[in-house]
């Protein structure tokens, strides 16, 4: 058999030598090229720090439980429910776009949920692609194996989803199901390149930045980056890692993160200490790192509740800091074993009082103590929840 394969080689070599005609580079082309690729052959990167779809859909899609069309249908359904609750039902996704003749849509008090905003942005992009064509190609890496052709998106996931929306949800599509892509040879692809592309663009959330930092740390410490979707615990492995052990990579990692300093890098990475629910909320609502930093001081069990309050009351980073420092004091007090915290005793005393204070006085007192109406409302809501929970204990 080896003899035979040598003979094939000899035969092919004679043809090839003739073909190359003294120019050995003639057929070699490792340049980055733009190609039109069938939409179905392109897939978003499951480990990409910047997540476009809500977490539940993101995981279902990357675990192949949803097709791209089904994933978008789920998103549309979420938005439909949210829109109906807000009294703005729609039957066609195009109705989400602001009408040029209707100024009321753009009034500042109309607050869109993150999902509504996401779908609206994607539809806007899809309509632009439909009307003007896709100007910027996606960048993809050829990850084909055998007969299975597959390209993994490096940048341009929003354009990918916009193309699916256009194809399956928006009338008037007359394309051929192809999408222009810059095909990056797999040997040129790296987490550093992807990080640079990500950080060079605006709108990367603090949580996405934290995931990005984690990916870079994991990569330089030779952790294997999986092909499928990963949980937050995968990124949290980076909490145990730092740049000190890999000084030769420090500059390139910080540059890939957009030129941040070591301290800032560490602050961003620390966000991964937030609980899963808090991470999802913070990512979805694009909360700033400075607002999230104080939350890390608290017990993970209350992270999500605090994040909700930050979102609901639009707290500033200063307000979040005050809120969290006060909560931290309460937590420290309650850590005394077999001892009822002073704050709890105070509430019990108020409950026992023969004459309850007037609501007006309570409101004034709260504002006086917190110095802020929003913070006062946060405190009041916390007490409401606390009293409800306490009543539950009594019932049990």
């Amino acid at each position, binding site marked *: 058999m080896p003899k*035979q394969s040598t*003979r*094939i080689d*000899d*035969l*092919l*070599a*004679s*043809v*090839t030598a*003739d*073909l*190359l005609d003294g120019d*050995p*580079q*003639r*057929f*070699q*082309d*490792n340049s980055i090229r733009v*190609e*039109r*690729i*069938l939409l*179905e*052959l392109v897939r978003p990167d499951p480990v990409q720090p910047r997540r476009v779809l809500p977490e539940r859909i993101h995981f279902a899609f990357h675990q192949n439980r949803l097709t791209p069309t089904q994933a978008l249908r789920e998103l549309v359904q979420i938005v439909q429910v949210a829109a109906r609750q807000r009294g703005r039902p729609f039957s066609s996704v195009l109705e989400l776009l602001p009408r040029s003749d209707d100024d009321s849509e753009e009034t500042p008090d109309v607050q869109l949920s993150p999902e509504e905003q996401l779908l609206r942005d994607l539809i806007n992009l899809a309509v632009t692609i439909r009307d003007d064509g896709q100007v910027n190609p996606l960048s993809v890496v050829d990850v*084909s194996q*055998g*007969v299975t*052709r597959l390209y993994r998106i490096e940048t341009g996931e929003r354009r990918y989803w916009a193309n699916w929306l256009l*194809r399956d949800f928006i009338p008037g599509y007359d394309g*051929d*199901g*192809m999408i222009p892509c810059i095909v990056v*040879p797999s040997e040129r692809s790296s987490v550093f390149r992807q990080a640079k592309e990500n950080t060079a663009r605006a709108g990367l959330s603090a949580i996405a930045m934290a995931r990005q930092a984690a990916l870079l740390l994991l990569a330089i410490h030779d952790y294997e980056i999986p092909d499928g979707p990963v949980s937050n615990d995968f990124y949290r492995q980076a909490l145990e890692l730092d740049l000190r052990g890999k000084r030769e990579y420090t500059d390139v990692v910080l540059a890939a993160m957009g030129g941040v300093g070591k301290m800032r890098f560490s602050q961003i990475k620390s966000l991964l200490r937030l609980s899963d629910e808090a991470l999802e909320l913070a990512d979805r609502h694009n909360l700033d790192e400075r607002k999230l930093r104080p939350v890390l001081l608290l017990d993970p069990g209350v992270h999500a509740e605090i994040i909700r309050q930050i979102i609901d009351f639009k707290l500033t980073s200063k307000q979040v800091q005050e809120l969290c420092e006060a909560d931290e004091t309460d937590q420290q007090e309650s850590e005394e074993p077999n001892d009822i915290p002073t704050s709890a005793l105070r509430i019990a005393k108020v409950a026992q009082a023969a004459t309850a204070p007037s609501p007006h006085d309570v409101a004034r007192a709260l504002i006086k103590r917190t110095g802020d109406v929003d913070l006062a409302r946060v405190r009041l809501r916390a007490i409401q929840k606390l009293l409800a929970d306490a009543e539950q204990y009594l019932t049990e």
Partner: protein
Amino acid sequence: MTRVFVLTNHKGGVGKSTSATNIAFGLTAVLRRAGASNSRVLLVDTDSQGHATLVTTGRNNYGADDSLYTVLMADRQAAPQVLANCIVPSTWDENLHVLPASPMLEGAERELIGVAGAPYRLADPLSRIANQYAAVVIDTRPSFSLMTEMGLLAATDAIVPVEPRYLETVGLMSVINKINEVREGWRHPNLRISGILITKLDMRVRGHKHLLEELQSHSILGKLICGVIPANEAVSYAHHNHQSIFAYDPQCPASKAYAQLVGQLVRQMAKAGA
């Protein structure tokens, strides 16, 4: 643009499947040796007999869910993805992929008659994935059927294998006319006759020699001859062993002739791409 070679002749037994499979394998092997960044070649078998499928994949029992038939019956929008899903690896080379035929293709023609756009049911989805390959080679059935028209409409280059026998050469003009008809009538200007491939030539047979000389001296057909494959028992044995002629006997005359032909095709591809 990816070159799509179709091997066609309405006469049976002229070496269409043999040539299609060996050209496909030769292209991928030569491109790889030349260091091409993409040396993948797709072999599309449109002949319900599935001979090309059998020798390159080791089986010919593909059916309603995993063959060209599946592609032809698929929803128009889903067809490119269905086609990509139906492609299987060959046993000859990791970069030679096969879209297998199925005995069900026999009935497909009947099922598709009267269906709008039926002749484009291969060309349309194939055009969406062709750029994944350095070249595509289509084997057709021995008739001027809807399936053959589909192959021609999907192709950029037609190669006409022909045996050097009187009746075969007489029929040659009707094949060429058919190709021209598809190019003009179906407005498919990209289709060109890439060459006439003389197969099974036995120089000991006086008639073969005479007809070859006649063809070579013909003002038009002579220029179209792209290769001469000698009659060679090794081809049959290679089929029997499900091997390419290059793997079965690299030094036999047929191997050398196919290597010459493949070299010529690759040179054309390189010239067109330059």
